[in-house]
């Protein structure tokens, strides 16, 4: 690990000021950034600790839930407002990492965490366009069982590893960002970029900007999160599904579907939602919706099973939400 300077920001203004310096990175719980620094993948010269910034969890005037960027994952998952209003978010957070990691990790840091692609993580021995633009991608032709089946590019098929972000994507969450020229809100579904030919650019966050909070609008219906993985705990998702469903008179009045583990970003399934909205939740309707959603999918031999798995898991989750045993 390279020598680094360390400063603790007491306010957003201070964080903005010091993070503008070249080579500086914001530090939340450090559960991802510090690992990457140890591996030589991240090489900041300075760290700005932002864990003293807002960790408030409260209701905003418009009824949405406001979660400060410094709130710890475990605190969010345990908060009564979260558990009563968006239990699915609590489930998603608790499906991630381990208790120890969740105690350290922050909401802001979770948004910024980087891929677990084995080739990205192997600075010494593997090529990676995300780590070293233009060097090539060893995941193609290598171990890509955990990689994207949709949204990837010839340059990169690494997936975003967060569970929490999948739930946030389903709930239309917004990321409130402070910058030199004021604050702005970015829809979570837009916050992470698809790799295209610049897999090194992962979010819309501009240099010098600081995540202040995440806003989570209320959702009227029941919602659920299911994560499918290689062991019962402490493993990244092969596929995860966040879904919310409102049925009125036997038809879908509102539906939210987001997938994790299958794409370079939390994958909000807008096409599938559109196909199901107004329809009865039948297996045929779900199959048609999945076909629409994955029409542009580009699976590889090592991960093609995930499209089928995503459909099966969604189907079971919607059955659970609609209270049927289909």
């Amino acid at each position: 690990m390279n020598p680094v300077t360390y400063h603790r920001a007491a306010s957003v203004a201070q964080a903005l000021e010091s993070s503008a310096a070249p080579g500086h990175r914001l530090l939340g719980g450090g559960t991802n950034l510090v690992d990457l620094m140890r591996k030589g993948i991240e090489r900041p010269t300075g760290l700005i600790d932002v864990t003293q910034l807002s960790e408030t969890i409260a209701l905003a005037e418009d009824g949405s839930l406001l979660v400060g960027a410094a709130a710890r994952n475990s605190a969010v998952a345990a908060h009564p407002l979260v558990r009563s209003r968006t239990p699915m978010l609590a489930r998603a957070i608790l499906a991630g990492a381990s208790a120890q990691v969740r105690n350290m990790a922050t909401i802001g840091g979770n948004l910024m965490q980087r891929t677990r692609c084995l080739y990205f993580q192997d600075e010494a021995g593997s090529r990676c366009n995300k780590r070293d633009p233009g060097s090539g991608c060893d995941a193609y032709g290598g171990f890509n069982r955990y990689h994207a089946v949709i949204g990837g590019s010839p340059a990169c098929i690494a997936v975003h590893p967060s569970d929490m972000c999948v739930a946030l994507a389903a709930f239309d969450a917004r990321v409130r960002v402070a910058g030199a020229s004021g604050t702005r809100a970015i829809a979570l579904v837009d916050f992470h970029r698809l790799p295209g030919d610049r897999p090194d650019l992962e979010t819309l966050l501009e240099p010098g900007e600081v995540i202040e909070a995440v806003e989570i609008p209320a959702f009227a219906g029941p919602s659920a999160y299911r994560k499918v993985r290689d062991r019962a705990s402490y493993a990244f998702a092969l596929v995860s599904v966040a879904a919310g469903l409102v049925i009125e008179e036997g038809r879908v009045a509102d539906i939210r579907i987001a997938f994790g583990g299958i794409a370079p970003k939390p994958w909000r399934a807008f096409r599938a939602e559109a196909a199901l909205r107004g329809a009865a939740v039948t297996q045929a309707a779900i199959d048609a919706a999945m076909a629409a959603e994955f029409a542009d999918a580009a699976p590889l031999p090592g991960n093609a099973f995930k499209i089928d798995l995503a459909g099966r898991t969604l189907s079971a989750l919607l059955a659970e939400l609609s209270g049927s045993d289909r």
Partner: protein
Amino acid sequence: MSRMQNAVIASVKTALGWVPAQWLPGGTPDPLIGRSAAIGRQDNRLDGPAKVGGLARFSAEVPLQRLSYAALVYSSIVRGRITRLDTAAAEATPGVILVMTHRNMPRIGLVPLIGVTDLSAVGNSSLPILQDATIRYNGQVVAAVVAETQEQADHAASLIEIDYAAEPGKTRFEEAKTDARTPASILIEKNHVSVGNAERELAAAAHRVDNVYRTPGQNHNAIELHAVTVAWDGDSLVVHDTIQMVASSAKALAKLFGLKKDKVRVLSPFVGGGFGGKGLWDHQVVAVAAAKLAGRPLRLVLSREGVYRIVGGRSPSEQRVALGADADGRFTAIVHTGYSIMPPHGACPEQYSLCTRALYRSKSFEILQRHLDLDIVPNTYMRAPGEAIGTFAVECAVDELAHEMGIDPIELRRRNEPDRHPIHGSPFSQRALIQAYEQGAARFGWVRRQAEPGTLRDGEWRIGLGCASGSFPYARMPGANVRLTLRSDGSATIASSAQEMGMGTATVQVQHAADRLGLPVEAIGFELGDSALPAGPMAGGSSQTVSLAAAIMAASEKLTAELLRLAGNDSPLAGLRAGDVRLLDGGIGAIEDPSRHESYRSILARAARDEIVVDAAGSAPLEMLKFAMHSSSAIFCEVRVSDVTGEIRVERMLGSFDCGTILNPKTAASQFRGGMIMGLGLALTEETLFDERSGRIMNATLADYHIPVHLDVPEIEVMWTGIADPRSPLGARGIGEIGITGVGAAIANAVFNATGKRVRELPITLDKLL
């Protein structure tokens, strides 16, 4: 191993066949069998409080003055040469004491490979260590940095710049088959076994199965990382290590660095998990050399990635198992052939075919292992090397045949239970596998199993029950030495360089010595983990306990003779010979006349002796060659498999073991359970992702290499027949490795029973069930 060795072992076995059993070790059953007090008790581990209280000091925790710290750099290519090696930036970094590469590493020889012929040989790899610019596998050590702190060493290591001229390496399992070698022997067994004409029998069989099973590479992941703290004092060397072979590693290091044997002392009082991985690898050698060059005591702790890079694991395998049976289900053919990796510079033959020789009788056999040569860190012994994956293939095949025939898999096994060793014809010393099955099946509720796969369900979950046999050979190591000190206050100490890896070495030997000497356990001490003590056996092959027990037995015989001599004519023992007495109640007594007894205190007081010290070695383990000696087990498990996702959850497991006398029920149960948990990982989660393009292990972290987490591990029940083996010390056989054997197949068989899907490639991940 050579053809010569085959010939020698075969002729010894033949000769022993003619020798009456009474003349051999174990010829007369150990008199302690059936009259023990401390043995068989549920005793806590003696080292428990020290470990729980944080007082046990492991090799990475030894405090030394002026200690320096080392970090390693590993090659990132598989084969080629270093063309540029720039260490200037690292050397200029604050705190750096030394950068050691092939340019300044002392010239040393090769480490002799561990084997059956040279018991002092201890190496896992015979490749040169930092001796030249050649790269021989991806992950090889290419530089070591020594600094004032670990952080400085780590940082400086990252600044070393290396250019390579890469050459193509041998990295592909499939391609390597073209040049597969056929070794003459596998450990002490002849490799190629051909009895009758198995292929012809197979073709003519009323029922047959014939399939290929694949198991992946696996890596060692002991909780304690490999770590060594080294200090030179002139030409003597002290190595605080975490190692399963204290005595022989001291000898090997002395030889390697040109020192007299008594100038090297290896200390390893605690090993934080070994499983076969804690042997002599490159890091100890590099640490010793770097400490010499630096002129400072030095600590080298491998990172988790480092363990993957330079410590071998379990070889991948491809095994064909074919079974033929007549209309009654009696085996007419057993074929077990296959491939695993064993580079010429490695030591472990991954003996997956050994279990097949002992499990079933059959009219014909065809057994053959072939070895592939790849440019890799050599694979090594990993808990039940061979048996863990061999039983997966064979015991799945038995289940498949039972299904094909429409009979219960336990019944099929019963019909093929051998009454003598199926290949050698030698008698079993003791074997009660069928009893283990019966007791296990009753306890587990095997009657709940439905023969038709997919019958039992609970919502989206299909439920399946499976079973399989485990098998592991008995071994006792020659050359196990102990020193027994009996003091005038009636206390005794046993000392041996032996190893404590968490299984309770000292605890059970103290229990043993208490019974052997007729003393309370509180009066016995046990010193171990120090090469300055009499050379003990290595901890491997599930053999340490009986090897030490035989040495303690020999020591107690010497002690008896010495005590009788000292007792002289003024003792109630006068005139008695060694065969007339036994050690009991704190002294010696006549077997025939309990009133003739004298205490140790009294004998030593009269002789004006503070203590008696005897050194003794265990007898040659000839019982292994005369008798077929195997532990075996019946493993049961119940799984649920999601119809939606293919996820597998093991609901419960039961192991029913036939392993001779159980010396300490608590430590034994932990060993069995631990082995079964490791078997669960073997079945469902563990897999080294070896990228065949680069020859590089890609998941060298515990986040990406999946061992079972707590939530994956269900209730595990263990039970045992407890029948003593009349041919072994204490009636005991090893129990460290048997626990993992059979588990892979039991789970795979349960998954089949739940789903009707037969997965013949481990690990059984959910995508294989969709």
